[in-house]
């Protein structure tokens, strides 16, 4: 248990408010909660990669950052008029 694991654990707590936002309010509110959760997840993966001391795990954080961006854009596009 070093400071990186502790930081990852603390960051995970940030997912709780994001989850609550995803459960309430209008669809756009929920989308904002989802985007925020994606950011927090990316940071958790970033910190965990350093906690496990494996350079290859950083690719995971990079992939999630780019894919949650693409997913958010698709959701925003569909929320504009169809849903």
């Amino acid at each position, binding site marked *: 248990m070093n400071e990186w694991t502790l930081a990852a654990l*603390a960051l995970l707590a940030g997912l709780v408010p994001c989850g609550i936002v995803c459960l309430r309010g209008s669809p*756009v509110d929920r989308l904002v909660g989802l985007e925020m959760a994606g*950011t927090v997840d990316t940071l958790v993966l970033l910190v965990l990669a350093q906690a496990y001391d494996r*350079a290859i795990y950083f690719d995971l954080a990079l992939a999630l950052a780019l894919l949650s961006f693409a997913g958010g854009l698709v959701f925003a596009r569909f929320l504009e008029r169809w849903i």
Partner: protein
Amino acid sequence: MSPVDLAVAALLLVGVVVTLFSCLGVLVMRDAHDRLHYTAPATAIAPVAIAAAVLLEERVSAAGVKALLVALALLVTNPVLSHATARAARIRKFGEWTVREDLQEGGPRP
């Protein structure tokens, strides 16, 4: 504890605290536009602080460079995503953007 360790711990603390407060901000605000503001610190300050911590610990190595790349990706993509989301929220509320007829080029149509 060496100064570098202290700096790493401080940077990590900054990243974690900023992210947690942003999450709380997203939770307590009223509408989507207000909430969107609070996604910015978590994607601008926190990744840079955490990437700096990784870079301090690992020096310039594969891990350090990849951490910087992740921070850069978040920094570049989030403003675009915020804009797209705010635009979607506005269109849902007020409908599609149109130019008022009397403001269109050439004045009002006959």
